[in-house]
């Protein structure tokens, strides 16, 4: 038999026919499609019992109550806790994304030491010994005060531990990052001479006059304010927004008053002037014959007459008077300040002017008004031990007079050799979030030894020499005090929702073990076995309630009982006016950083949050600047054009976004972009950090950073 092509034909046909009458073909066809329905590389989340556990979100100062949905103990979703005094079930996009922060690819997974610019993962013992040795050497050189420490704020036991460590090491160089709460506190101190925590009873007010506050864009306790905003429709609360740009708050407001940038204080003072002239202020609250009030009244009426102010602010006389009338007519008006989210400080003059408005309305400590709260931290700290090195170091002068990291960094920049020899950084990312971030980065580079306690490889941590990585908040137990300007006094306890994923430690435990490694009086000042023990001991006055209920809500809040004086003479000081850096001839435009609720500052936003960011804020790796079409026309620019944006501080290539809602001549650029974490490409390497384009302006009164913008120019690339 000859094998030819017909044989092959037969073979093929036979095979085909044979297979066709077996189940193989049909079953395989079905199975192959089922295979595509169950591709092994598409994850199948395991099922199990659903449970909910409550904790507190610490991503911002709002401290919302969150409920973590778990499947067989595995957290899968974050929701707002219903009935929680701050957020009553609501929750912001960052809080919902918290699990992405837990699994963030830029998490520092174990202690690390940097040698010759390369990171090496090491054991905790080694990292601690390394840090202790460096700090010990500085102390031994009788230079203990050259150790500085930066934390986000000074509330709670963990900050307390850092402050304590700094002290017992022998340094008074402990700094916290600027926030509007800090600016408010300074203002109140200057005006009334009292230490108070500010809270606005917005829920019960009937008119909110906001001077540039991103009231519904992350200001204060964001979710709390969203709910206040939602109440406006049902409870007739009016909102007036003073701001040169139609922000989301301005859009939601009943009235938008687009004052020229940086003239908010002028407008507030002009309104004061009108109220005083017309006698429309609360006579009970104000002692009209007080000489300091008289001086203030004279200044407000003359220097900030509607006619003059109309020129400075661009708001016409009638509008200014109408604003004043609206404020006077309201039963429970309240004026608020703190730009954007209030993540930075601001001009004391602006805060004081707005505070003056509230004082004139007589709403201090009144329902629906401006509350000066007296918050008792309810902490008991044992005494500290200071050895000779510590005593000597601590007796030295602080590097800078004001408690601002900006000033500290400026000092480092200005000195040939950094006066700071070791820097401890916890819960702060100055290399990203301070103005003129590039200069800050250079300053940090000059510091010989930096210890970061961050959970993430953020901009500051990248420059560290040792990282003692912290658990992120879902992995730890810690007391948190509400710091946002809400009329609530809550101390809450975060609880571990998941056992730590990596070889990280509770920052409190890191401080304790670092102190232990230092031995001697330093170790002796931290007598607790663990942070948990410390927490229980220090919070002893409220521990029972805190540990059982998860939070201590003080109700009613205690308000500052007596306000002895009310002195606005600081407003008479002309030098307090904060102008934008740069000369108008070279830089004809004004650049304002603006806050965007969908982006964050210090810690980069989550992949989910970045996903929600408009393509008119970020496209690919390009940041956009908002510009009025009229200004763009003059510059012959159109939507999407690439331009070089130059300010006295720096320059960047950005794209143009035409927006009718921004004042001609003003540029706006979103905060929160330009993070550099290479490990997290979902958020890192996108856009430009606007802080690198704006320099700090030291407030003449408080010394805090008061910059609200900078002069700028743009040219086509």
């Amino acid at each position: 038999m000859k094998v030819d092509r017909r044989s092959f034909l037969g073979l093929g046909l036979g095979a085909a026919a044979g297979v066709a009458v077996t189940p193989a073909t049909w079953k395989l066809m079905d199975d192959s499609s089922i295979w595509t329905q169950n591709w092994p590389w598409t994850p199948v989340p395991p099922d199990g019992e659903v449970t909910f556990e409550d904790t507190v979100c610490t991503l911002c100062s709002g401290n919302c109550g969150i409920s973590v949905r778990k499947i067989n103990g595995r957290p899968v979703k974050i929701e707002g806790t219903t009935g929680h005094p701050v957020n009553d079930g609501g929750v912001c996009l960052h809080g919902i994304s918290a699990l992405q922060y837990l699994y963030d690819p830029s998490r520092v997974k174990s202690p690390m030491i940097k040698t010759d610019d390369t990171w090496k993962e090491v054991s905790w013992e080694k990292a601690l010994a390394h840090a202790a040795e460096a700090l010990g050497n500085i102390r031994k050189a009788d230079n203990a005060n050259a150790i500085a420490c930066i934390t986000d704020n000074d509330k709670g036991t963990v900050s307390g531990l850092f402050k304590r460590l700094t002290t017992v090491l022998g340094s008074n160089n402990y700094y916290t990052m600027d926030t509007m709460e800090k600016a408010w506190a300074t203002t109140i101190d200057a005006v009334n001479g009292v230490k108070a925590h500010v809270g606005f009873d917005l829920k019960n007010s009937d008119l909110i006059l906001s001077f540039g506050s991103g009231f519904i864009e992350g200001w204060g306790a964001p979710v709390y304010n969203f709910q206040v905003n939602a109440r406006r429709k049902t409870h007739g609360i009016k909102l007036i927004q003073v701001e040169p740009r139609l922000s989301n708050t301005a859009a939601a407001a009943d009235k938008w008053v687009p004052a020229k940038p940086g003239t908010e204080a002028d407008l507030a003072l002009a309104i004061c002037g009108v109220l005083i002239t017309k006698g429309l202020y609360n006579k009970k609250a104000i002692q009209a014959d007080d000489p300091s009030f008289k001086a203030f009244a004279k200044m407000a009426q003359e220097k900030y007459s509607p006619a003059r102010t109309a020129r400075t602010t661009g708001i016409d006389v009638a509008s200014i008077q109408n604003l004043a009338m609206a404020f006077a007519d309201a039963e429970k008006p309240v004026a608020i300040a703190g730009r954007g989210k209030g993540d930075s400080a601001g001009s004391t003059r602006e805060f004081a002017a707005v505070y003056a408005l509230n004082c004139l309305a007589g709403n201090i400590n009144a329902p629906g008004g401006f509350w000066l709260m007296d918050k008792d931290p309810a902490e008991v700290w044992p005494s500290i031990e200071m050895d000779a090195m510590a005593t000597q170091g601590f007796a030295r002068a602080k590097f800078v007079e004001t408690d601002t990291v900006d000033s500290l960094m400026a000092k480092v920049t200005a000195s040939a050799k950094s006066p700071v020899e070791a820097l401890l950084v916890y819960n702060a990312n100055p290399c990203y979030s301070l103005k003129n971030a590039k200069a800050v980065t250079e300053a940090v580079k000059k510091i010989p030894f930096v210890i970061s306690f961050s959970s993430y490889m953020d901009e500051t941590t990248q420059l560290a020499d040792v990282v003692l990585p912290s658990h992120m908040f879902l992995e730890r137990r810690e007391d948190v005090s509400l710091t946002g300007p809400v009329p609530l006094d809550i101390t809450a306890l975060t609880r571990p929702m998941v056992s730590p994923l990596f070889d990280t430690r509770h920052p409190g435990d890191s401080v304790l073990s670092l102190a232990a490694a230092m031995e001697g009086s330093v170790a002796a000042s931290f007598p607790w076995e663990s942070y948990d023990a410390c927490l229980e001991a220090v919070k002893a006055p409220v521990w029972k309630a805190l540990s059982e209920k998860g939070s201590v809500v003080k109700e009613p809040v205690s308000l500052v009982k007596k306000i002895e004086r009310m002195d606005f003479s600081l407003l008479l000081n002309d030098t307090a006016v904060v102008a934008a850096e740069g000369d108008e001839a070279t830089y004809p435009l004004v650049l304002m950083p603006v806050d965007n609720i969908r982006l964050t500052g210090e810690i980069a936003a989550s992949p989910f949050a970045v996903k929600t960011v408009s393509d008119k804020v970020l496209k690919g790796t390009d940041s956009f600047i908002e510009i009025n079409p009229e200004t763009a026309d003059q510059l012959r620019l159109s939507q999407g054009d690439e331009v070089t944006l130059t300010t006295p501080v720096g320059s960047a290539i950005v794209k143009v976004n035409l927006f009718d809602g921004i004042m001609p001549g003003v540029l706006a650029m979103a905060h929160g972009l330009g993070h550099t974490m290479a490990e997290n490409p979902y958020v890192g390497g996108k856009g430009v950090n606007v802080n690198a384009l704006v320099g700090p302006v030291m407030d003449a009164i408080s010394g805090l950073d008061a910059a609200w913008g900078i002069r700028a120019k743009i040219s086509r690339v």
Partner: protein
Amino acid sequence: MDSALIPKGANRCPFPVFATGIAVVGVVLLWGVYAMGLCWIKGLNQTNMNDYYGFALWIWADLAVIAIGGGAFFTGLLKYVLGIDELKNIINLAVVIGFICYSSALLILAIDIGQPLRGWFIFWHANVHSMLTEVAFCLSLYFSVLTIEFIPLILENRQVDKVPFFHNLSHNMHTAMAVFAATGAFLSCFHQGSLGGVAGVLYGRPFAFREGLLIWPWTFFLFTWSAAAYGPCFTLLVAKMVEGITRKKLIKDNVIHLLAKISGWMITTYIVAKIIDTIYWIAVTAPSLGFSVMDFYTDNAFYGIWILFAEIVLGGIVPAVILITKKYRENSKMLLLAIILGVLGVCLNRWVMVLQVMAVPVMSFDTWALYIPSWQEVATTILPVAYGIILLALAYRYLPMFPQEKELSTEK
């Protein structure tokens, strides 16, 4: 080398020349196959399609090749059912073109779907309300019919024909061809129509939406009619191209003119219907949904009113006038112009009904979506063209495609 396979008495170029030509086109084909492979293995992220442009370049190509492949069913209908016998001289070409176009269309569909291994769901889990289901069923059935129509031609290959079984099979199939042609025409009417329906039923897309008869929007009938009208244009165009490349006269002028005339009248009737449809759409349909016609042609960088003009006047009225006028039709240059304009016209119509539909914003705050295909899409779209050229070349070389070829070459 391969002369034993070449039809008797036919004059073909030497094998090396032929092979070289095929190889050149083959390279393009391979490029397309590579792109196709990428789309299958890596997924449709290889394209520049997006959630706004879910249907794009190659779906246009799909619709276009089906439209211009319409010559097969329509010529078949004319010859076998209506008995216009002269058309037997061009029917083979029409069938081969149809086969190429339809196999390409099916291939494109197989690449276009996100889950090719589930492609059979369209048959197994069919949703009878969907135009696409109708398309899939009619398209695959008609493709089977075309294959059956193509087989006798293959069997006529000199070597195959020698096998008595195949010879008889071929003969018997020929006698039954009228039945197949009729079936094909019926199926074709439906799937051409349902392809038109694909856009016309989109009542969420005012640019595409058309009222209609029963479940079929007007586009259903317009697509069928236009495929019948313009399909022969493409058949003629390919005939002219083959003649040009081989530098031989293959089909007698009377056949060409006859088909051109029929096509002309079909285009004329079609374009009248299309104009009525367009006017109704402009005057009634779109305004009832809140759109004025210029909303569809302004505010974007590409789609201007020119496209409507080009489709209706340049691609419709002009070829219609040329083809129905004896003087123009019989002027070879005018004829060529008309069939080229016709083919472009129908392709443009399909473009508009696929791509512009996706581009036009519907929500008042939405924006136009324009899109530029990726190279993978372009390559995949060119793939059928290369495949078509190769198959046509093979068919021409080895099969007696043009019954008049011998006669005409002797005449010469």
